[in-house]
């Protein structure tokens, strides 16, 4: 069964304190891995897509990386406005379905 596990469940940082969020996955084959940001009461907002091991993508203070078994979302010098839940999702290649399989998310709080 395709599965996505995110850790930690919650993370508190001080403004400027860099850290990483982890997303580990077990799938029959990977067509793509996605990172989304979700603010309270809102839908997930797309951040990155990664397709193959070794790939990296950056956007402002965020950098996503991918290996064969996991992805990391690195947050450099975070600001309070980076506080949100970060969701990881995978597109498995088996089964012929186009559904995304999501993890439970990491709730990030950045204190000023």
């Amino acid at each position, binding site marked *: 069964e395709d599965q*996505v596990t995110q850790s930690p469940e919650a993370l508190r940082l001080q403004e400027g304190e860099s850290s990483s969020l982890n997303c580990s996955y077990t799938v029959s084959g990977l*067509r*793509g891995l*996605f990172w*989304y940001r979700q603010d309270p*009461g*809102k*839908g*997930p*907002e*797309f951040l990155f*897509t990664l397709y193959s091991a070794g790939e990296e993508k950056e956007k402002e203070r965020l950098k996503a990386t991918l290996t064969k078994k996991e992805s990391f979302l690195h947050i450099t010098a975070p600001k309070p406005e980076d506080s949100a839940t970060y*969701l990881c*999702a995978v*597109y498995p290649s088996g089964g*012929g*379905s*186009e*559904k*995304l*399989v*999501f*993890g*439970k*998310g990491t709730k990030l709080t950045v204190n000023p």
Partner: protein
Amino acid sequence: GAGVSQTPSNKVTEKGKYVELRCDPISGHTALYWYRQSLGQGPEFLIYFQGTGAADDSGLPNDRFFAVRPEGSVSTLKIQRTERGDSAVYLCASSPGMTDTQYFGPGTRLTVL
């Protein structure tokens, strides 16, 4: 441009009632998805449309749930004989085609009393 829109934003209903949730995808997107998100969980897949047809409805929990997309654009998720366990946020997403990035709407929060 306009993103995915969903109506209503909130719906409160009584156990046993029928509800309809609407999704208006990004213009030109052929693929449309419904997910359900419970508190503290990630979104869970319900059903996927490519054009007008349901290409995969394996995530629908039972036959009380049904979705349509008659003209290949707007979709409606229909829930019959609602139960308290149906309470959740129902998210809609659309993408330009298969395996493309999915863009989500703001969701409809359904509360069944």
